[in-house]
């Protein structure tokens, strides 16, 4: 395997409040190869946004390592930090909050260009901004360049955000729920623009979303990592994750998601969870974090031992005592559970 472009090694993240401490990431490891697409999927509070910020260098891990191009990010300083800083860019969720309302499109995009000497003067900056706007399918660019954010639609703003990220010629783009707040009818074209840019500019994408269907579409050729309560619990090629999920949580997600087809959505088998309540981050369950809700929970095992990510039969990685092991293992575990229970 080639050297991953970005890598997390056993990253933990703890937030210390005035009188409380919350750990939001536990031992998170992931790798992204150059030009690859990795989708991080999970519900609110699962740590996907924090993971994105750590990857983007906007937040530091409490422990563990972030590697960029095989080198530890914490060792970067001066020029090497500046290079890394610009190589990884982020696109935010809310098209209404991601652009400074006081600046026009031109100013927003020209700041980084001028600051980093990517253009020589305002004339060049303007030409480059027009080029970038055209690149993200914001046409006619000349009509939009002097507009303020409030004069643009949600989809247009999101495209300006993408163009802004592209000003510094990044290698990696982290898109945090980048399409969840734009209208359904234009989501696909926004996603297609991103895919197109990836092909044309050789970008690596880390796409964070709560929506498995969007992840499946965007990461069709890539991978999906599913997070639950601060941990990666399943990871693998997008098709496998959505078509043959192995972890009971992923199975629950896939089965719970309504589909845009009445026949399919009404016939889908449903996974019944044992509890509907999401545990609080301040009082996490022991053992497997999913065990209080898990439909295939093995008493005596799951609440004691935390499963590690391990290869499954279909070729994904899953952190589950029951499904991730070979069937032989699973039977042994089940037998142990039964003996403990009796």
């Amino acid at each position, binding site marked *: 395997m080639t050297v991953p472009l970005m890598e997390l090694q056993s990253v933990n993240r703890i937030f210390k*409040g005035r009188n409380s401490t*919350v750990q*939001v990431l536990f031992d998170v490891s992931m790798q992204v190869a150059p030009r690859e697409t990795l989708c991080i999927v999970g519900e609110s*509070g699962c740590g996907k946004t924090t993971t994105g910020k750590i990857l983007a260098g*906007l937040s*530091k891990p409490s422990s563990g390592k972030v590697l960029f191009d095989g080198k530890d990010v914490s060792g970067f300083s001066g020029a090497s930090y500046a290079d890394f800083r610009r190589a990884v860019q982020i696109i935010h969720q809310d098209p209404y909050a991601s652009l400074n309302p006081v600046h026009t499109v031109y100013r927003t995009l020209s700041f980084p260009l001028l600051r980093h000497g990517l253009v020589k003067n305002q004339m060049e900056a303007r030409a480059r901004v027009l080029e970038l706007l055209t690149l993200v399918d914001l046409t006619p660019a000349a009509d939009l360049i002097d507009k303020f954010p409030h004069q643009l639609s949600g989809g247009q703003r999101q495209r300006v955000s993408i163009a802004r990220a592209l000003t510094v010629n990044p290698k990696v783009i982290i898109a945090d729920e980048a399409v969840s707040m734009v209208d359904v009818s234009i989501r696909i074209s926004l996603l297609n623009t991103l895919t197109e840019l990836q092909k044309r500019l050789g970008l690596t994408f880390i796409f964070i979303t709560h929506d498995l269907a969007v992840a499946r579409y965007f990461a069709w050729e890539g991978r999906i990592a599913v997070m639950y309560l601060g941990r990666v619990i399943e990871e693998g090629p997008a098709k496998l994750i959505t078509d043959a999920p192995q972890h009971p949580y992923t199975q629950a997600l896939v089965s719970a998601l309504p589909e845009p087809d009445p026949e399919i959505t009404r016939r889908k088998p449903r996974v019944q969870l044992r*509890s509907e309540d*999401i*545990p609080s981050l*301040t009082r996490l369950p022991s053992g497997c974090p999913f065990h209080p809700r898990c439909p295939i929970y093995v008493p005596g095992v799951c609440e004691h031992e935390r499963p590690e990510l391990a290869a499954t039969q279909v070729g994904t990685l899953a952190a589950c005592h029951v499904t991730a092991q070979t069937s032989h293992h699973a039977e042994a575990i089940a037998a142990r559970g039964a003996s403990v229970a009796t």
Partner: protein
Amino acid sequence: MADTVLTSPPATAPATSKPLRRSLTLRGVLRSYAFRSLVQAVLTIFAVTTFTFFLIRLLPSDPVQIYIDKQMQSKDMTYEAALAKASLMFGADLQAPALQQYFSYFGNVLRLNLGESITSPGTSVVSQIAAFLPWTLFSVGLGLLVSFVIGLFTGMLMAYVRNSLLDTILSTVASFLSSVPNYLTAILIVYFFGVQFKWFSVAKARDAYSPGVQPGFTLAFILDVFSHAALPVFVYFLSTFGGWALTMKNSTLGVLGEEYVTVAHARGLGRLRIITSYVGRNAALPLVTQLALSIGTVVGGAIIIEQYFVYPGIGRRLVLAIQQRDYTIMQGIFLVTTTAVVVANLLADLLYSQLDPRVRSSS
């Protein structure tokens, strides 16, 4: 820079199957809003007490030293005798080392011994305060209460009829009243109602009650007390009313845009019920904390207003003390007034925490 941008944790999912009743553990009490308000109040009073101690002693024109010098010059005392007399006066043993002085001063304060007046020896500071403070608390409290209640109703009315002629008129009047300094309002009232329209006699309104009326729980006395307090109370009312009305108007407009009000209408609730329980209550909540903060300001304004109306409150006593440079009285008044205001703040805070369940249970 990079890391300072992000220090707050992401929203944690609430919802556990366990009941969320507030536990009455020590931890729960220590984290409660009420407890923290109490600690804040005690610390403030402690800081003010310490502050007054050093204020009198450490400033370039040390009033203690001036007093001793004066005594030595005018009464031909020895330094020791003058010092002893000063100690009695300032309620602290001035011969002792500074730290010991501080502790004995503190002990005295706790025993409500604030020393004696410099200009009228033999009169204790506490007795002076006891004689004057109640009138201030009475008039300021009454004025604030009336203006708060009327301000709330006016503000709600303005919000309900927003952009109408009535709203424009009320808003303009309210904003003018709230901008005029209260001591100038007092002058304008005397001019218009006392001099021009002659609705009352400024001279008769002096003092807390008329000479000849026997203090007691009689109707005549109570009416007299109210009529004497009427002018300062009216000034406090006029100068704070506008602020309440405008704040309440904005607050109400905010609440009227809230979805739960729309939902209350959708639920078919009666208009009165919505106005009281859904709009009025929620809009008034944030004003309760502001009421607490305004007490201090109004008490400050009372200094001049009581002077102007010759009303025997603590402010008038303070002005007299300033004119006579009677530092022990000044020090005592500052200490007691501040304590009174801090306690009033605390009460308002506690009231607020009772009215808003979100504050009560969050830490």
